[in-house]
C-alpha cells in the first residue's frame, strides 16, 4: 500500500493567481506601459496640407492603463485569497501496490 500526495485546489488557485498577475503585468508592459487610464482609441495628429490645421483622428487601439493592471493584480489577489479556503494537498492511498 502506497500513499501519494497530489496537489490540491489550493495550489491550483495559487498558480492561477500567479498566472493572472503575470499575464496582466506583461500585457500592460507591452502595451505601453501606459501610466494613465485604459484607452480603446488613440489620437493620431495630422496636418491638413492646404489649411495647415492640426487635427486629431481617432484610431481604434486598445492601450491597457493602470486601471487594467490594477484590475488584473486585484483579481489575482482575490484568487490567491480564495486559495486559503481550499483544501491543501490531497493524500491518496494506492491499494494495488
Amino acid at each position, binding site marked *: 500500500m502506497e500513499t501519494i500526495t497530489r496537489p490540491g485546489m489550493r495550489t491550483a488557485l495559487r498558480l492561477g493567481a500567479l498566472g493572472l498577475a503575470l499575464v496582466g503585468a506583461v500585457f500592460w508592459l507591452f502595451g505601453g506601459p501606459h*501610466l*494613465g*487610464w*485604459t*484607452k*480603446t*482609441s*488613440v*489620437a493620431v495628429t495630422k496636418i*491638413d496640407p*492646404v*489649411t*495647415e*490645421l*492640426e*487635427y*486629431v*483622428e*481617432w484610431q481604434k487601439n486598445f*492601450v491597457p*492603463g*493602470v486601471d487594467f493592471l490594477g484590475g488584473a493584480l486585484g483579481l489575482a489577489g482575490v484568487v490567491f485569497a480564495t486559495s486559503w479556503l481550499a483544501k491543501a494537498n490531497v493524500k491518496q492511498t494506492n491499494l494495488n501496490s
Partner: protein
Amino acid sequence: MKIVKNAWQSVGWAVLLAVSSSADGIKFDFKDPKGVNTVSFSMDAPLEAISGSAHGISGEVEFDPAKPEATKGKITVATASMHVPNPTMKEHMHAKDWMDVATYADLTFEAESLSDVQKSGDVYNGKVQGKMTLKGVTKPVTVPVKLTYLKDKLGARTNGRMQGDLLVLRAQFSVKRSEFGINPGAPTDKVSDEVELTLSLAGSAPKR
C-alpha cells in the same frame, strides 16, 4: 411734410447702407465633410489630463477682408460628437451630470464683432466678442482668435471640384465648467474646473 419725407428717405438710405455693408462680407460654411474641423478640450485630473475632441461642427461666419472688425457668425458643435479615449469616461461625459447630450445636443459660439485686429498678410489676429452657450447657459466671452484668409484655395482642398475661398480660424481659451452647470458638484481636485478649449476650424466659401 417735406422734412418728414426727407427723414424717411434718410432712414431708407441708412437701412440700405446697413444691408449692403453686411452683404459685403463673404459667408464661410464651417461644415466640414473632411473631418478636419476640430474642437479639442482638456481638463486637468490627478492621473492624467482628460483630453478629447469633437468633430460634429457646423455654422457660418461672415468675414470681409477689407473690414475684419465686422466679422460675425455662429459655430455649432454637436455634443454627441465629443470623444475621449476611455469608453467609461466618455459615457460619463455624455451623461446628465456632465454634458447631458440627450437634452443639450449642441454647444454654440456666437461671434458678434472682432476687435484689436492686427493684419499681417492674410493673417488677422484679434479678439472676438460674443456669446458661448453650453448646456443651456449663455455667457459672454472674449476670445483671442487668429483668422487666415486663403483666397482661391478651396480648389486645392477639393481637387478642383469647387472654386472659392477658405477661412481658417484658430482660437485657444478656457472656460469654467461650473459656470455652465457642468457637474458643478464634482470636486476640483479630481477634475479641474477650468476646461481648455482649442478651436481649429476651416470654412469654405464656394464661388457661385
